């Protein structure tokens, strides 16, 4: 989950076999917004559309940067794809 602490959004590991807490992940405003969209139901495309609407950036740019950000979250073990796989990550729902 995330905590807003002293004007920072921090990802705090809550459950399961996370490693010892030797690193802390901070999310900026956009990162925090994307994190909030990750609910186990939305696809990456849907999250990118929400980013496009919220931050008034081109849809293509929103899709590219959302995908990059989500890939970084996944690489850090903070989220994982869930739901039926259809077209790879592009349509996977995501779960924090």
């Amino acid at each position: 989950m995330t905590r807003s602490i002293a004007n920072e959004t921090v990802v705090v590991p809550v459950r399961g076999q996370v490693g010892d807490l030797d690193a802390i992940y901070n999310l900026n405003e956009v990162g925090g917004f994307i994190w909030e969209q990750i609910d186990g139901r939305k696809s990456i495309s849907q999250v990118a559309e929400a980013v496009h609407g919220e931050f008034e950036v081109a849809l293509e740019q929103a899709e590219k940067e959302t995908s990059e950000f989500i890939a970084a979250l996944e690489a850090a073990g903070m989220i994982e794809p869930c739901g039926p796989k259809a077209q790879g990550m592009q349509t996977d729902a995501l779960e924090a």
Partner: protein
Amino acid sequence: MQPDALETRPYHDFSAQIQGRMVAQRIPSSATIEVTRRCPLECAHCYNNLAMGDVEARRGELSYDEHRDLLDQIADVGCLWILYTGGEIFARKDFLDIYTYAKKKGFLITLFTNGTLITPRVADCLVEWRPFSIEITLYGSTKETYERLTGIPGSYDRCLRGIHLLLERGLPLKLKTVAVSINKHEVGEMKRFAEGLGVGFKFDSMINPRIDCSRSPIGVRLQPWEIVKMDLEDPERVAEWKKFAARYNRPAPSEQSDELYQCGGGVNGFAIDPEGKMSICVLSHFDTFDLRRGSFREGWDHFLRQVRRKKITRVTKCTGCQIKPMCGMCPANGELENGDPESPVDFLCHVAHLRAKALEIPVPPHGDCEYCEGGSSHTVLADSLESLDKRAAEKWMSFTESKPLFPILADERNAGTGCCSCGR
């Protein structure tokens, strides 16, 4: 879009940076919560333990629902770190319920425990809801010494079982001890035991009177020369003290701070006792705010702010003392030892002066101090130095035996059924 939507920082960098901002903004970031004072052990040195069967104590403790409400409140105001302590935290049957609720709220949680009530069920829960850190206090490296201090037969084996259960699950365990007259000769072995397991170890020698005003713990407190002897036998400790002194011992400024409290209590830290009384720290009980009668926000914004702003009312030898950082004197110690937060604690003064002398750290004059040259207790200091010299050949911290201690753990490690050092 903004760059660095996801920034990764080493935990220690994050902690140092955010703590600085939290102090500047007076955000209550660090809670110490005593969930109970009941404990299955009867340690001679303990400052607050009560019997497991103390019905009155149990009735007075915050309920699970009250803890949940408290956690909701402190999460809202930005608290990030919680230290759960006791008594013995697992003496409460509902502690894991409180703990998992706190985990779900996103706190970074450290647990202080004696380990004797850790069962497979408890350890499995901690795997699922992993704490930031767990610290178990050892009371001896042998059953005889351990149980002489705890007063409870069988407690040694139960503690080892607890350690084993945590380590085999790879949980973030550290060990520590309180060095007292009963176990001082086994501190070195306890350290080696921890090193053998691959976990951190620390010890503390400072003992306070009990918070109920009993001075019984003083009966097992080490003599000042014994405390300093343990420092001197550990090169790492000597280096740390010298580094600490070089960094923090400073000439007294021309204008002294007139604040009574110099610590983080009331700035970013606070303590809550089992009955919901909030104070500057767990040792200080002169000024408390009843969280059953008011909200955390009220207690923090108004009551504790006023406590933290208290001024000293008189000049003492501590006021201008340049080795105060090596001493540990604080208002809570004054409260417990003398019933007066501003009254210097003779024992701490003795230890600080002896430590400085032994480590050849200068002690500039600081008023009417008994332990400085010409003072009434200067001869006492000389006697302590003589005791240090006489007993220098004895090595309490050295390791005279090569056989493994704690055979339950050592056997399993040797048998290759899982590494007790790394837990894998």
